[in-house]
């Protein structure tokens, strides 16, 4: 069953605008199942980044896997269209002989990242090396000088974003969950913002929920929750509160079965998106109830002295 909803095969994953996403032929109707309907949604509700349309709203990382082969299998199972690779792990002298890039499935969009950079200058130098090596102008900007939390440096990230945009990059910055920083990054010309859910690798889930909600409310560019999503339910939660996409790495990579976990994240991301589009009912307070028809509905249906208007008198 999971195969049915795996959002897309890599080779048909991306297309240039102005794509008019159509309903994948025969996915609905035939079975009428919820899963088939969900699969259909993928075609009707694409994820757009800098003018390119992607089918999957799950982005995946390539670190921490037991082997490149397991990584490749998990990437395929995730149905993701966009895959991020740390440039510091890429070894061009080993191209074709087992380098990490050799294991990224054909058709997936490569998103090189600058992890390891300590400041804006290093991130820019690394991004340029990456562009020269891979030919893509996409870059996932990461400036994480603190090896303890791998928290992004907001000041250097903004600086680097400005430098990279000026240099022609399409910039997707990993950033603190801060609504003002998100706006500044948008003003700087970034293609997305990628606020953290919790520390990279912590698997602690959506600890920044309030800030992400504020970012979603104001952002004019896609919001991708990146880092810390430890379980598929975390990904669903991020999508439910309005994130446009999520990026997951550690939780898939160090799971006992990365392929199965990748599928679980694909489904959860989709479920969260469906819930968002359906309009999730607002949660009430612990002692708050709400009647399904209004208690004051009788007002106005009675004529005469009780009515507040009194113009007839």
């Amino acid at each position, binding site marked *: 069953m999971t195969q049915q909803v795996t959002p897309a095969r890599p080779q048909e994953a991306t297309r240039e605008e102005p794509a008019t996403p159509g309903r994948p032929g025969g996915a609905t109707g035939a079975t009428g199942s919820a899963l088939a309907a969900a699969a259909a949604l993928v075609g009707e509700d694409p994820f757009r980044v800098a003018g390119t349309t992607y089918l999957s709203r799950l982005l995946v990382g390539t*670190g*921490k*896997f*037991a*082997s*490149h082969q397991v990584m490749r299998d998990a990437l395929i199972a995730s149905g993701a269209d966009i895959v991020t690779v740390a*440039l*510091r*792990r*890429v*070894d061009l*002298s*080993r191209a074709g002989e087992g380098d990490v890039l050799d294991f990224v499935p054909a058709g997936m969009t490569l998103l090189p990242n600058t992890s*390891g*950079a*300590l400041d804006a200058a*290093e991130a820019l*130098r*690394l991004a340029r*090396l990456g562009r020269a090596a891979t030919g893509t102008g996409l870059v996932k900007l990461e400036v994480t*000088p*603190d*090896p*303890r939390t791998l928290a992004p440096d907001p000041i250097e990230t903004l600086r680097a974003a400005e430098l990279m945009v000026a240099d022609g990059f399409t910039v997707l910055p990993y950033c603190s969950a801060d609504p003002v920083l998100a706006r500044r990054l948008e003003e700087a010309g970034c293609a997305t913002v990628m606020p953290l859910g919790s520390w990279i*690798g*912590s*698997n*602690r889930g959506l600890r920044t929920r309030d800030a992400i909600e504020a970012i979603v409310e104001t952002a004019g560019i896609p919001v991708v929750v990146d880092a810390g999503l430890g379980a598929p339910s975390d990904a669903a939660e991020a999508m439910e509160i309005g994130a446009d996409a999520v990026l997951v790495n*550690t939780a898939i*990579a*160090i799971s006992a079965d990365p392929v199965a976990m990748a599928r679980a994240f694909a489904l959860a991301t989709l479920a969260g998106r469906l819930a968002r589009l359906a309009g999730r009912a607002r949660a009430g307070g612990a002692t708050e109830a709400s009647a399904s028809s209004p208690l004051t509905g009788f007002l106005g249906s009675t004529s005469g002295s009780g009515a507040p208007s009194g113009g007839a008198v």
Partner: protein
Amino acid sequence: MASPPGLFARELAGLDIPALALASAQAGPEQVDAVLRRAAAAGRGATARGDAGGRLGLEDLAVLLSPAATGRLEELAQLAQATTLRRFGRAVRLFAPLYVSNACLSSCTYCGFAKGLAVVRRTLTAEEAAAEAQLLVDRGFRHLLLVSGEHRVEVSADYLVEIVERLRPFVSSISIETQTWSDDTYARLVAAGLEGAIHYQETYDRERYAQVHVAGWKRDYDRRLASFETAAGAGVRRLGLGVLLGLAPDWRADVLAMAAHAAFLARRFWRTEVSVALPRIKPSASGFPPTVVVGDAEFVQAHAALRLFEPDAVISLSTREPAALRDGLVRIAVTTMSAGSSTEPGGYGRPGTAQEQFSISDERSPADIAAMLVAAGYEPVWKDAFPLVDAAG
């Protein structure tokens, strides 16, 4: 001429390591149980309020290092493994030492390179060093550690700068394990492309330190202890700490002091990567007998305890240790290891032409180590770095 105490020396003076070591020796099973439960809770992200993120303190580390905790080694190892996996994933970084010289002006009683020992000395030319580096690159390595004795004339700052510049175009990450340097020299090395510096304190016990470091540059305890402060201030971004187990009578005290040092550096120089190592004394030309023998169970315990104390620290393990122990520790706490090492200058191209520093135990080739890691479910990471200076620069 002793150097003035550095920042950490002053912090260490206030820590009372002997009292912590005594507490470790006397810890009871209830204390072990309490710390293990807290470490497990921190791993689940279920820390109590006021627990400061669930980090363990030095008192907790003392308990985890205790004889009482040796009986709970399996649980300790499981917790350490989960912590290592979460932070580092299923990936182990590989590096090779490149011995450039065994010339030495320091007299350290435990070392095969010590001044005065009648051994064959050799210092590679920069060209010879580059040839050795090329052999290592051909074997897969992209991270190299330049190692030398302490000889300010034969292994000068100029000499090291020249080698770093020569290697930079084809070696992704270059570190040194040499004598300590002034801030000017570290800055020159960083400008040339140096990434890391390893300076083991060997022992944090001042009295014992003075006994075994008889003469030479390394005899100055405080200069050595402050070297990371100098190096990090000059832009060195990977710092490698270590104690030589078997040197001081109380190995737990040394592990505690080193852990405090690592925590201090991680706090003070928050942009740097801190790594720790626990080499055990090996047979060498010095004929030095270990003061105490740290058994295999205690050795594993120390690694697991360090992992829980400092979840983000890189833990390094050399070929001094036998294959079975290395294969076991990589599943618990170790995140970087050397492979196929030669500890004599020029030993990769033409072994047997100079004195080795110590004899290695794990003699498997780099390819065999990589195959072992793959079989164990880990990815061998050969390259985990990027150019730090512009190619043209």
